[in-house]
């Protein structure tokens, strides 16, 4: 698991959420599952949580509530 960094996972998450803007809301777990699929054994759930937290804390992504909790781009 040493090859992929948290920053790389965070960037890939950001790219995924950006690409889905206006098409489909993604739950945090959806984003993590897609990352684990993309990076394979190099990434686990813990790493995804850290990457997501980094994105949220930095303000690149934000949470949204619409019947359930989703991650999305902040409003411009």
């Amino acid at each position, binding site marked *: 698991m040493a090859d992929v960094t948290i920053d790389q996972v965070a960037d890939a998450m950001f790219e995924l959420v950006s690409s889905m803007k206006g098409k489909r809301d993604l*739950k*945090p*777990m959806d984003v*993590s*599952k897609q990352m684990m699929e993309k990076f394979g054994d190099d990434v686990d*759930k813990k790493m995804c*949580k850290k990457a*997501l*937290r980094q994105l*949220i*804390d930095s*303000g690149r992504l*934000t*949470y*949204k*509530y*619409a*019947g*359930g*909790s989703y991650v*999305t781009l*902040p*409003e411009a």
Partner: protein
Amino acid sequence: MTEMKYKTPLLDELEKGPWPSFVKEMKKEAHRPMVQDAIGQLERSYEEHISHWKHGGLVGVMGYGGGVIGRYSDLPEEFPEVAAFHTHRVNQPSAWFYTSEALRTLCDIWERHGSGLTNMHGSTGDIVFLGSTTEEIEPLFADLTKHGFDLGGSGSNMRTPSCCVGPARCEWACYDTLDACYNITQEFQDELHRPFFPYKYKFKFAGCPNDCVASIARSDCSVMGTWKDEIQVNQAAVLDYAKTVDIDAEICDLCPTRCVEWDGKTLEIDNSNCVKCMHCINVMPKALKPGKERGATILIGGKAPIIGGALLCSVFVPFLEMDKDSDYEDLKELTEAIWDLWGEHGKLRERVGEFIQRVGMSNFLEEIGLDPVPEMVMAPRSNPYIFFDDEIFE
């Protein structure tokens, strides 16, 4: 009394009678324009039988995915003061013990940043602040944290855990509910503030099977105090009760498993058949007490939604020692195993109890690595979820 901006004949009806009235309380705060408009919009909702609140959206504090519930008026031109009227959940102290200074601090903070209206407390247990603008969300949070408070849970995350008064005021508490509640709240801060689940997950800690916090009905994980050994009986005190209580009719006949016998002199309890309903202890509190070997039963899967689909929790772990020194490791381990499975396979807005119903109890147990035990039943002496091999082949 401040003059009211709107006529409210329907709401006024709710001020009649001797009981407390939220309308009366709101009118006391009517010197605030925000409260005037909230009252006006509420009257309109009563007239039209429809809510004029929209909820959800992007509001929150930086880094958190819960604690602030976005609320907007769908009539912002008519009621501009409540165009944004967000709700804030503040994590309450264990068992709702406050000093008067803490209460004053909370009220002062809320008067500085919001409508001044509160709900003490919400059904999950939080202190609820009703009505702030979007601009005040971050300053309010900063003010709260400066004074040692934090936001509670909302959305698809662990909700703010709550507990009964436990050993602070109750001799029947079988473990320290306040400590367990605080410990779990601190342990799972990430899950409390950052939604990662299919839906909400609630913890409630009850010190004994009387379940004063209704944990079995209102939480996904109910940690209910119980005991393993015999009910403690003070026969002399039982004789005292016999002067005023018909023990046969009021205790023996009402025992759900008929495990109590009274011959006029001695009370005999068949503890192997006791289902810990607490009835006899509640009727004769000076004569009977829970046993000395105390701990908790862990029950999973309850929920009490407003419209329909209520579920009661089911026993998962019949007895767990709730030793503070062990840091509640077993409870934490079980919780993480449940979250891993439900988090990965649960559908959107599917509570853990519904998930268990969908996949089946035996599959669920197998996946989280818990062996089935005979206590895992809908109710004592009722239908089991799991049939053991020797029963099938008999």
